[in-house]
């Protein structure tokens, strides 16, 4: 495989781009694999990569019903951050951020991770206090965190709505190492790197049935034939419940909800940072892509859904929330809006865990936050599959935590999946 670097880009510029070949193979499914990962999204692909890279397990297949990166990997607002404070969460997301920082080099694929700073606005002294608490805890853990007072914020982002807003902007909690990445590139980069380590990426390979024998999964029926795997991992986000029931495992603490995302026409640089806020029942995040589009989103559509399209009330809500902090956006035009299916859990936290089936492992429940987590998610899911033992950072992220009453949620919004923003 041709390495990606400026040298080869120039060389291929001169020879009519003839030196590039497939970024990953299109193999026929083998009958047996050591590990089958169901789901060719970011988490599945990252898992396959780290299985091969960290654990020398190369006989791995990634099963994708459509095309890799076509689900939530391609339907998010690409924010990467690690501003968590609870034990476990903090270490997990910080590790993820560290992996992000070197991901382009690791994968030899420019995933365009740009540490443009994550600026979380606050609007009341109470919100400032709680931001101070969280960001101080982050600092104690050794991650970067700072508070910007109003003067600093005005200097950094002069065109926020400081004068006429319903909720005054008082300052912001900032993580400078946070930012955005190019979502498609992450999926393709993991696929290409995993493929080069021997992983088979099987596209258009939909799971149609699961055969169990003596408490373990014997084989998986797919649209491309029956495939056997010693171990099986699920990483299918919003469709987890469907697979779970296919394996006759009953219910899960997950509901599928839809989250809309919005992209505008591309314009010259208008916003350098990721800006987020939540006040007055609104929840909003915005950044500008390298292509120039403003990319933003807000709340869920508030009802359970598997549809990848949204409805007008949340379109209005998100537009309002955008204008509330950036009133200059009024004339900027929305180009596209669509929805992704989120696997919302009962406590807003994810699962990387074993299951009632001995050779089945679960990676699910990423709520709104799956994108930033994908490197660490792949890392620790691979670790769990290879070593059978959940790592300390994720050992509470299991299906038994509800019965045991283990609290790992940062927000504590209660057992209602739609409330975990």
């Amino acid at each position, binding site marked *: 495989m041709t390495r*990606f*670097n*400026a*040298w080869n*880009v120039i060389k291929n*510029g001169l020879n*009519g*781009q003839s030196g*590039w070949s*497939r*970024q*990953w193979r*299109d193999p026929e499914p083998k009958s047996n694999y050591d590990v089958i990962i169901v789901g060719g999204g970011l988490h599945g692909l990252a898992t396959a990569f780290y299985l091969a890279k960290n654990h020398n397990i190369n006989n791995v297949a990634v099963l994708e019903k*459509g*095309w890799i*990166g076509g689900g939530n990997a391609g339907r998010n607002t690409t924010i990467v951050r690690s501003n968590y404070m609870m034990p476990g969460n903090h270490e997990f997301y910080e590790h993820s951020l560290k992996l992000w*920082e*070197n991901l*382009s*080099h690791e994968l*030899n694929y*420019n995933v365009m*991770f*740009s540490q443009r700073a994550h600026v979380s606005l606050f609007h*009341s*002294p109470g919100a400032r*206090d709680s931001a101070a608490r969280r960001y101080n805890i982050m600092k104690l853990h050794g991650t970067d965190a700072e508070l910007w007072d109003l003067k600093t914020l005005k200097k950094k982002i002069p065109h926020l*709505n400081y004068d006429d*807003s*319903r*909720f005054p902007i008082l300052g912001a909690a900032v993580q400078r190492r946070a930012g955005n990445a*190019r979502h*498609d590139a992450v999926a*393709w980069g993991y696929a290409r790197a995993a493929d080069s380590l021997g992983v088979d990426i099987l*596209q258009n390979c939909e799971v149609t049935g699961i055969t169990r024998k003596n408490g373990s999964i014997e084989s998986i029926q797919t649209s491309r034939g029956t495939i056997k795997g010693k171990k099986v991992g699920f990483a299918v986000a919003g469709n987890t419940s469907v697979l779970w029931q296919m394996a006759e495992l009953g219910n899960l603490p997950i509901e599928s909800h839809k989250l809309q995302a919005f992209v505008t026409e591309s*314009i*010259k640089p208008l916003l350098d940072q990721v800006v987020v806020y939540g006040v*007055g*029942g609104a929840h909003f995040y915005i950044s*500008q892509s390298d292509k*120039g589009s403003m990319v933003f989103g807000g709340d869920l559509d508030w009802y359970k859904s598997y549809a*990848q*399209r949204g*409805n*007008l009330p949340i379109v*209005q809500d998100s*537009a309002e929330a*955008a*204008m*509330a902090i950036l*009133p*200059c956006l*009024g*004339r*900027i*035009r*929305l*180009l*596209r*809006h669509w929805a992704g299916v989120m696997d919302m859990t009962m406590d807003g936290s994810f699962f990387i865990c074993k299951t009632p089936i001995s050779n089945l492992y679960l990676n699910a429940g990423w709520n709104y936050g799956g994108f930033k987590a994908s490197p660490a998610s792949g890392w620790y899911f691979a670790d769990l599959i290879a070593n059978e033992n959940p790592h300390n950072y994720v050992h509470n992220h299991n299906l038994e935590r509800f019965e045991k009453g283990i609290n790992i949620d940062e927000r504590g919004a209660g057992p209602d999946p739609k409330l975990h923003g």
Partner: protein
Amino acid sequence: MKSKRLNNLGKIDRDKTLNFTWDNKKLSGFEGDSLASALLANNIGIVGRSFKYHRPRGIFSSGVEESGALVTIGSKDRRDPNVRATTQELFDGLKASGQNAFPNVNFDLGGINNYIGRFFAAGFYYKTFMGIPPFEWGKGTTIWMLFEKLIRKAAGMGSASRLPDPDSYEHAHDFCDVIVVGSGPSGVAAAIEAAEKKLDVILVEQDSLVGGNQLSENDFSTSEIFNQLKSLGIKVMTRTTAFGLYDNCVVGLLERVTDHLSIPDSTLPRQRFWTIRAKHIIVGSGALERHIAFNNNDIPGVMTVNASKHYLNRYGVLTGEDIVIATNNDSVYETANELSEAGANVTVLDSRTNIEIDSNKNFEIRKGFVPYNINGTKKIDSLDISKSENINKIDTINCDQVLLSGGWSPAVHLLSHRGVKPKWDPENACFIPSDTKENITMIGSSRGLWNKDDCIASGVAGATDALNRLGVSKTNYFFPKPGGWKNPIKPLYEVKYKKSRSKSFVDYQHDVTADDVRLAHREGFISVEHLKRYTTLGMANDQGKMGNIIGLSLMADLLNKEIPEVGTTVFRPPYTPVPIGALTGRNVGKHFRPLRVTPMHQWNIDHGAKMIEVGLYQRPWYYPKKMKHSVIHILEKQQL
């Protein structure tokens, strides 16, 4: 290109002169002009620059599919970037300027990208900029972020104002039995049929005039139809785009209230965002003419055939003197006649050989020929042509304009918003709408019907379908079969250039070339969704209205498959871009959220309380005069 205003033809008012500026140059047009037609009347050829290579861009179309003539209008806090000149109505005092260029669109330093463009193939940025070149040494994101700064500056199209939008917007709501989208022959027929059966009908038209593509006909009277619709009690909404279909027959509309006025009434909103709750939706959104990919097919002076007809008969503008029309279908011949009657020297290249054409021989028809390469950089000098079999340059025609028609794509976008996948019609080389269980009926050329009688029949059938589904009647109806041309269309998507490094554009705004599609294929990005994301094909402001099918056909060709096997991209709302301000409506500034107050609110204010936000409430934080020293001191100490 030598375009000029004629003394006859057009639906413009030559007695009302409108002054406007283009890049600070004072120009004039007439009442009824679009910005694009006024620019063409003033022989302005270059109106923009493309996204990546900064190639000169002219006016490609006369409608919403425009991907070249994106300009900035207005100034200061009313600066609007990325406005389609083709749909912006001209008004007195309009200020327009070119964008994505320095110092201007005629001479743009960014044009250097065109010469080093060979290094900028699709997705090249995924392969480099990671570390120190040439071998990407180093770790972390530092080097990328240095490159990124430059890339961000170069990217983007127009530049936006950073000042708050001073205009106001409104939300409005309405209900009806049937909403008809589009006022072409089919939409009008449907609306009339439904209204005559006593249904409550709303007809929406994105243009300022009703008529749809009939506006490009010489003898068409828009006012007659408008009056007829009105007399039947139909609510006719012009300058209104149905931008999206949502659950349960809800339609989102954007009404442009004052965008066409030079001094708007200050009590009017700039735009209105309508939520219409209908019982049935009839979509007659028409079809869009495609271009053809061949080398240098983007030089200013290239236009779709129907656009030229539109400029001629609606605006009285002849878009060229020596015109070559390249086609693979029958739809161009009326235009060829009209253009030559208006004084242009017209040659038609028809890729087909075995065809019968009735024409008055005012122009030459070269059967079995296709365009091969355009010579020129900022304007067309000549066109190299080839036989349609055995592609190679065999002749050159001197011309200043090349009009293209690679077939027509029904606008199935609105149905696609509902998750309904269109089906491929190989006979007509286009996607046509599939049936849906929901109360939505597609009519007219958005169903793949090419002649007016069929369109009208389909409109009546569509209305009958609505009446049946609403339980008003139980009448049999049938839709005419797609098609309607005398000679069958012969698929023509790309004329392959023999030399390497061709610039055959598939997506004009994003500079996606046929070679980019081939590179994507070579690298394994063969599904539609991957192709789109890897090359950015169809992700520009026009959302691939012209280029998508060409990209699909190229990929199908490479895979040795039929187009439908490659797939269809899902069109997302909005159909045309919608300002965030309109979606927001009145809920701006202090009205973002309601303010809730306690019974003591006024008392607190009267006593000088410093208020803070608590949810939607405001509560006193402290009373500065009395407690300044103790409380503030403590609170400030606690915070940081």
